[in-house]
């Protein structure tokens, strides 16, 4: 009987869409919050809110990428992991559900104004969805089903709120109302904004207030006995000599290393570091510490990086170590697969992309330098694990290399008095 109570059906749809949006946002927030124990967890990544998916499933990759991206939360340097962006989304959907229920209970001009402001406020999740969706598609190149659920709910809320507003606007004037007792639009706006602030702010305060103290973990995961490089095994990753000295142990064909590199760059904290790399390929072709080739071709690509480093130091020109690393990160899936099928593929791919390095890869000199890199790891008794970052010799905890990166790295830098 939508005709008897203007916009009722549309308002009910708004409430239902808000509940759906709240459910998706809750799932996303839950996935984020469970990582606050610094462990790795499976994610819920389905159009059915709450349905769990395995982290290694292809469909979960999009959710993994978006969850671990720097856009998934705010205040990341102040709060471990930051405050998930889906938490205010929960507040916004709860707020809009409340406003829709409130509108249902009003009559006359009050309902008309309430519906109008509901329509205006309903653009908040839609605009946020547009921004986050654009970031996901353009920046992250990933689609997350839970996020799409939020975007969809946001769109339905706007459409239904718009229809409710239109219904009320066209019919409510016929109803009896006491215009003098109805608050002005300015009051509606202020009250609405205050309510929205409370709905968003209170859960955020509760979230931050109940978080454990993560500062006690910063700098407690060991340190290098020294950061000297007498064997010349390290490769400079930047020219930021004024930055805090940092040693990064990584494998150029390791997906976690690529993701870590992206996160570090996105955080902007790399600008405060002077990073040098120790190559640690997880490939038994050169690394006796691993059983089998975890990342086939990693030894050859590491050699190419060392070749580029040596060549650019001696004669300049040609590809730099960073160029080879960048290429290896981009093409690592292809390189690993090709080398698994044909052990010579990595060398061939290097030759195709960097012909200048072809004659260097595989030589005794570069193999020996790579071996020295691995022996550096032995001499410093570091874990057989990539990536690892040592800032001023102090290890960034492995549990802090994803969501907690900004918080923990900032903490390490502040402990060292880094600018």
């Amino acid at each position: 009987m939508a005709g008897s109570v203007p916009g009722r059906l549309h308002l009910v749809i708004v409430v239902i869409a808000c509940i759906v949006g709240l459910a998706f946002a809750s799932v996303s927030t839950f996935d984020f919050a469970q990582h606050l124990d610094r462990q790795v967890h499976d994610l819920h990544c389905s159009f059915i809110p709450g349905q769990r998916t395995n982290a290694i499933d292809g469909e979960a990759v999009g959710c993994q990428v978006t969850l671990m991206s720097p856009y998934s939360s705010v205040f990341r340097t102040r709060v471990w992991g930051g405050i998930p962006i889906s938490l205010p989304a929960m507040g916004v959907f709860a707020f809009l559900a409340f406003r829709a229920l409130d509108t249902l209970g009003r009559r006359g001009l009050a309902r008309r104004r309430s519906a109008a402001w509901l329509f205006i406020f309903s653009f908040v999740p839609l605009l946020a969805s547009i921004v986050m969706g654009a970031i996901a598609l353009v920046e992250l190149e990933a689609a997350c089903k839970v996020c799409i659920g939020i975007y969809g709910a946001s769109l339905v809320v706007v459409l239904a709120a718009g229809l409710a507003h239109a219904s009320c606007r066209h019919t409510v004037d016929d109803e009896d109302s006491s215009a003098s007792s109805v608050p002005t639009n300015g009051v509606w706006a202020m009250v609405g904004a205050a309510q929205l602030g409370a709905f968003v702010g209170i859960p955020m305060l509760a979230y931050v207030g109940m978080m454990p103290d993560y500062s006690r973990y910063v700098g407690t995961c060991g340190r290098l006995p020294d950061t000297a490089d007498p064997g010349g095994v390290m490769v400079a990753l930047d020219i930021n000599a004024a930055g805090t000295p940092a040693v990064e142990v990584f494998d150029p064909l390791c997906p976690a290393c690529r993701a870590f590199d992206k996160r570090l760059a996105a955080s902007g904290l790399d600008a405060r570091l002077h990073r040098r790399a120790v190559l640690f390929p997880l490939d038994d072709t050169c690394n006796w510490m691993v059983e089998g080739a975890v990342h086939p071709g990693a030894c050859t690509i590491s050699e190419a990086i060392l070749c580029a480093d040596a060549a650019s130091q001696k004669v300049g020109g040609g590809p730099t170590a960073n160029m080879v690393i960048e290429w290896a990160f981009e093409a690592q899936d292809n390189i690993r697969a090709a080398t698994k099928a044909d052990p010579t593929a990595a060398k061939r791919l290097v030759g195709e992309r960097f012909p200048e390095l072809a004659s260097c890869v595989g030589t005794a000199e570069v193999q020996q330098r790579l071996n020295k890199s691995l022996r550096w790891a032995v001499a410093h008794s570091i874990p057989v694990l990539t990536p690892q970052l040592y800032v001023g010799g102090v290890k960034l905890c492995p549990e802090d290399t994803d969501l907690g990166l900004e918080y923990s790295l900032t903490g390490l830098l502040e402990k060292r008095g880094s600018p």
Partner: protein
Amino acid sequence: MSSIALRVGVGIVCAVIPTFMAGGWVRGAGKRLAKIEAGEVVSDEAEAEAGDVAIATAADEGYCNGDLRKILRRVLQSCGLLGSGEVRGCQPLQAKNVATMTGEDFNALFLPLSQRAGIIQFDKDSSELDQQDTALLDKIFADQRGASYFFVVARSSPEGEAEHNRELSQKRADAVMTRLRTAFNDPDLDREVGMLWLGEEYAQLDTNFCAWSRSGATDKCKPKDINRSAFVAWIDCRL
């Protein structure tokens, strides 16, 4: 009035839902974190991570039996690589002392190294490395992998005076070391390379070693040829 109270009530309920949910999840994560910190494993993932993480170590292959390890330790000590000794290289007599076994048994210890070792063959009465020698030496030295020690065991054929042959085998070992210094800028060289010069008196190689990687010509593998040599190999043993 009741309408306002109802609105406020609904508003509080709506606001409390996300607050309680998020707060509960954070509190739950905090409790799990505390349990992990206390050593109580609470998830498969945590259990997997709580397992021993391998630490980077030098290789220690199966052929590192007690005898080889003993020889290795004694040679390294007597040659000054372990401890604070300044000595570089060992005399043949000392080699016999550290290897209290027959020459055959001594050589047998190195048989498992067939894929890792090389025999650098010299010309008669010569300690100079030619191009084939340096190529083989460089190839073997570059293939260090996880090995901690590089052994250079120089010999000479039984022709000539024993004293002269001792000196000759020492020169051959020195020639190998000089080449390594020149070709590889390795600061650890002095801690890695152990040299023995055996002369003609101990552990002569038999022709079974002809099948190993050699720098000599195919037809130059009579006993006198193969003992004008330096046997080089990385030893994958930890001490």
